[in-house]
């Protein structure tokens, strides 16, 4: 079995980083399939794990906001998720409920005693159980005053006392675990492939000015003949995180998550391949950590195994028949 047009010299995946800081990375991804670029985008948004408050034990709440209202707000506060791979999922942990291996405890204890003004409760007011490791489960604070997010306001005599348990999770379960804010994703900005049908009043050309990315590619006028076989192969990506992880690291974690997903499929389909070379110690390569060891390769290509205990069931066990299975042969 061979490729028609993949892996031939110049067609290796290429990236051009245009801008980067800890919140944001902007790059052009070239020579990969649209499906691969899109799957990376989806995975980065919905399956890269982060920390978020998941359980709130309310001891006292005499503020004007109801318990569940505050609990919901607490869940949405971004927490640092740098060393997330050191945290276990609570469901995989040996403990009964939660412990320091699978959670971080953030406590709030505030009472307003001021006659004249309301007390503002910010995310910096959390007492975090593991102050030592700032990279996991601490509130992300990025405003110049260093206050963080306003959680509630208290009048004189009102009090809030809560214990919040932050756990590891992914955004497929709840959007509060999303590592990203916006992920920009664009290809073929001048619509040479005609994937879009431009809407216009009178003249599409005047009403659709060439975009910033469009200036980097041929315009429709410069296109001589329409290429029916052309496929998109330049993707303009802008990945912005909410602050819990650095943007470049987030992208690398997305790649790893997608690789693990594929490795799981391989081990489900051919367990004999899976057992000869476990890759459980595979770590995402963090930028700046490795210097020049790019040629190293990882333990992937050869053997595959699952990641995460409990995720894999034995292959060849009982199979479920779905109602729709018998009748759909012809209707693709």
């Amino acid at each position: 079995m061979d490729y028609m047009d993949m892996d031939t010299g110049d067609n290796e995946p290429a990236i051009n980083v245009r801008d980067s800081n800890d919140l944001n990375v902007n790059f052009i991804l070239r020579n990969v399939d649209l499906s691969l670029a899109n799957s990376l985008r989806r995975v980065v948004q919905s399956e890269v794990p982060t920390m978020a408050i998941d359980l709130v034990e309310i001891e006292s709440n005499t503020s004007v906001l109801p318990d569940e209202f505050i609990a919901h707000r607490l869940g949405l506060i971004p927490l640092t998720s740098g060393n997330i791979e050191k945290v276990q999922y609570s469901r995989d942990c040996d403990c009964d409920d939660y412990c320091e291996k699978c959670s971080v405890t953030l406590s709030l204890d505030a009472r307003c005693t001021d006659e004249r003004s309301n007390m503002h409760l910010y995310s910096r007011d959390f007492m975090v159980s593991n102050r030592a490791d700032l990279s996991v489960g601490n509130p992300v604070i990025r405003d110049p005053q260093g206050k963080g997010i306003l959680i509630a306001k208290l009048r004189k005599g009102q009090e809030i006392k809560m214990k919040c348990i932050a756990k590891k999770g992914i955004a497929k379960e709840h959007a509060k675990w999303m590592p990203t804010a916006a992920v920009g994703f664009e290809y073929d900005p001048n619509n040479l492939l005609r994937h879009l049908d431009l809407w216009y009043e009178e003249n599409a050309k005047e009403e659709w000015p060439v975009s910033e990315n469009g200036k980097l590619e041929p315009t429709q006028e410069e296109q001589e003949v329409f290429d029916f076989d052309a496929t998109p192969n330049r993707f303009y990506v802008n990945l912005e995180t909410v602050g819990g992880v650095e943007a470049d690291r987030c992208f690398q974690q997305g790649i790893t998550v997608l690789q693990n997903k594929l490795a799981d499929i391989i081990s489900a389909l051919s367990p004999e391949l899976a057992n000869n070379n476990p890759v459980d110690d595979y770590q995402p390569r963090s930028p700046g950590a490795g210097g020049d060891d790019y040629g190293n390769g990882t333990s992937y290509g050869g053997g595959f195994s699952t990641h995460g205990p409990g995720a894999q069931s034995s292959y060849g066990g009982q199979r479920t028949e779905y109602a729709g299975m018998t009748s759909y042969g012809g209707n693709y």
Partner: protein
Amino acid sequence: MSNAPPRHELFLLDEGQDKVEVKMDTRVPNTAVFTFNREDHTLGNLLTAHLHKYKDVTFAAYKVEHPLKPLFILRVGTDGGISPKDAVVRCCSDIITTLDKVSREFTKEMELFKIARGGESNGV
């Protein structure tokens, strides 16, 4: 609220549930139907699009039967040069290799970007 499916069922397999179920199509030669449990378009589209690149694969398509069912169904037909199952395994491992290249390239380019920006700020 009470009949909402548990949210983890989008990605966690049930007790004893297989990740992938394979069934050969008895009416068409070299054709198999795969059910990927707890997976979605992320994998379905990725595998389908890459299977189309293989010479021996004559047919590949997927569908998510229903938005509330956390699974997709992939149908793969080949010309006999490779079994559908081997084609999917091969496809997965090729994508993993490509992703490795993307990761390495990204690491390299980030380093270069940091060097270039460092040089700029020193020059100004």
